[in-house]
């Protein structure tokens, strides 16, 4: 018969091998997860980083009084209504005097973004003394020009397959040759609302819409969620009813979000007649979705407060309410906040339920309050992903990057809160 030590020796190799195998399974899984994440980030960044720059054209615009204000009254109404497009067209004609053909002229004018009109109008309204002078103005180029400069339109393609014809490319090259064209930081992307013209479209409207929506969600779901959790965890008797409530809260957390959208559509819009596309309704719908998350996280956090603290307070003659308010709640608060932030970041990334309540509309202006029609970041991404213009592809990715940035910041805050206020007993 073998000695015990020898038996153990014989089995050791197998044991260690199994351990190594198990560890490598874990490593492989982690690696797969990380690779998927990396792939996602690389593809989004690679597609999106160019959107943070935009091609601008330098024009020497002559602020012709005959066009802007023929009567010379400097009346703000007149200045607002003047045909600034004419100024730009004139500038372009003077720059390329060879272009005679009407169709070619129209193509020439289209190299400049329609937004240029607004920037020139803005300049004049701000300072009417500019009238009669000639100013050097940088105006955004049309998205096709931008795409050519960024290399998304291939010059080697046959002319018929290109959005820009040879003539247009020649004009663009002429701009470039004289140093009248450069890529600048795309401020518009961060300050403007949505637009049909990619070079004028921005995420600001969606960001503000998301902000109001999340504000409504937070204001509703945090107090209600915490109150429900405190009641269920600390005060409610344990019986069949509370069991039923608990099961239903857990079920609610697993309901597909589109269902909440349908509920919002029928209750908030059709029955209560709240305004369509408003962050208020979006926030209401997202609160319904976030509440179970907040309640579950808050209950877990309350449960983790050690019983010795409760006993200490009760033993002093504190009432149940005092025990909760003075001791349990402050200790559970970081955990509750963490849960709430995670619920909020889920709400920020949510688009399906908001489609149902009309937040998918094309809205140019940023909302000024939770009752104004607006859209939110993920819906804006969805809208842009659906447009045919090539320039919206990079903007879709850029907006996704911004959304991911917000999510990373929020989840980072949750992690920070958790470690910063972690209590050890």
């Amino acid at each position, binding site marked *: 018969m073998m000695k015990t030590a020898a038996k153990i020796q014989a089995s050791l190799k197998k044991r260690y091998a199994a351990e190594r195998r198990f560890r490598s399974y874990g490593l492989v899984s982690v690696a797969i997860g990380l690779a998927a994440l990396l792939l996602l980030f690389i593809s989004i960044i690679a597609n999106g980083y160019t959107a943070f720059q935009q091609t601008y054209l330098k024009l020497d615009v002559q602020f012709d009084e005959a066009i802007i204000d023929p009567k010379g009254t400097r009346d703000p109404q007149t200045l607002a209504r003047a045909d600034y497009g004419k100024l730009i067209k004139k500038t372009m004609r003077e720059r390329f005097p060879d272009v005679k053909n009407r169709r070619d002229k129209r193509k020439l004018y289209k190299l400049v973004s329609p937004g240029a009109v607004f920037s020139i109008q803005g300049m004049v309204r701000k300072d009417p003394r500019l009238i009669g002078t000639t100013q050097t103005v940088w105006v955004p180029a049309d998205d096709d020009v931008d795409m050519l400069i960024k290399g998304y339109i291939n010059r080697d393609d046959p002319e018929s397959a290109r959005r820009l014809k040879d003539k247009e490319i020649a004009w663009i090259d002429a701009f470039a040759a004289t140093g009248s064209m450069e890529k600048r930081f795309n401020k518009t992307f961060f300050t403007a609302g949505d637009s049909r013209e990619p070079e004028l479209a921005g995420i600001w409207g969606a960001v503000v819409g998301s902000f109001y929506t999340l504000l409504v969600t937070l204001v509703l779901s945090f107090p209600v969620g915490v109150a429900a959790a405190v009641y269920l965890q600390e005060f409610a008797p344990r019986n069949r009813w509370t069991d039923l409530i608990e099961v239903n809260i857990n079920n609610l957390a697993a309901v597909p979000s589109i269902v909440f959208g349908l509920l919002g559509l029928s209750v908030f819009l059709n029955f209560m007649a709240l305004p369509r596309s408003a962050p208020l309704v979006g926030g209401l719908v997202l609160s319904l979705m976030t509440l179970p998350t907040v309640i579950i996280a808050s209950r877990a956090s309350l449960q983790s407060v050690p019983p010795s603290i409760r*006993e*200490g307070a*009760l*033993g*002093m*003659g504190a009432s149940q309410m005092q025990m909760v308010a003075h001791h349990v709640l402050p200790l559970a608060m970081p955990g509750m906040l963490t849960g709430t932030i995670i619920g909020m970041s889920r709400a920020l990334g949510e688009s399906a339920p908001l489609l149902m309540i009309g937040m998918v509309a094309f809205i140019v202006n940023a909302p000024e309050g939770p009752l104004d029609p607006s859209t939110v970041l993920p819906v804006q991404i969805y809208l842009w992903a659906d447009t045919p213009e090539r320039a919206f592809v990079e903007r879709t990715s850029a907006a996704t990057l911004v959304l991911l940035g917000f999510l990373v910041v929020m989840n980072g805050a949750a992690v920070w809160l958790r470690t910063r206020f972690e209590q050890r007993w």
Partner: protein
Amino acid sequence: MLNQKQAVLLESPAKSNEPAPPPPVKIHEPDTKTVGRVTVDKPIMTTREVDVYYGDKQAINNVSIDISYNEVLSMIGPSGCGKSTFLRCLNRMNDTIESAHVTGKIELEGHDIYDKKTDVVTLRARVGMVFQKPNPFPKSVYENAAYGPRIHGLARNQSELDEIVENSLHRAGLWDEVKDRLSQPGTGLSGGQQQRLCIARCIAVNPDVILMDEPCSALDPIATAKIEELIDELRRNYSIVIVTHSMQQAARVSQRTAYFHLGDLIEVGETSTIFTNPQVKLTEDYLTGRFG
């Protein structure tokens, strides 16, 4: 609003070396199998035929015992004998356990503490408790000692509160050690200091009875000695009931000792008598270390 009975409960007798005359209590001779005299002449608390059930399981079986003014009563017995359970009946801490069910009569100066009219908040202010594991609140030392007076509204202004806090820390023998760090968290003190802080917190509301549930089991011998000294000191003003696993501790600090076994109160008597001349074989076996 307090009703009349609660108002009477609130009024605690003046603390002095002389025990206050107890209100007339009808001495009810208990029907018990306990060996030794369970009653005292001037009880502050009386318990009669107390049974405690956890669900269907009976944890305490027909226990009757009195607690006198200015005495330390120690309760000893092997693990699971129900001594902690019984202790927790005395300030109704068992209320927090949903399945627990208490029958029999427990009176504090003649008032049934399980009566519907008795407010548990008032009761716990008069019968304080110190737990096995030091459990200071994760707040400052000052806030720990000030918590009781604050919730019960015992101080009219800040200076009165300061006085109560200083006084109770003094009486718990902790003042000199913590006077420079009153604003630091109570959880940052050493184990022994934490336990004395818990005692200070308890006496800050000036209770009549202090219940101690193995207060030294988590402490080293030096800290234990300090607590024992303190218990002896506190006896001048309070009645103390202490549950302990250490027979030496019971012998050192208490005047009377009660021996519990499997939910029964086997024997009660003067500590000196019990330790030198136990009447029951079970008590003797436990005390001599034949089981435990």
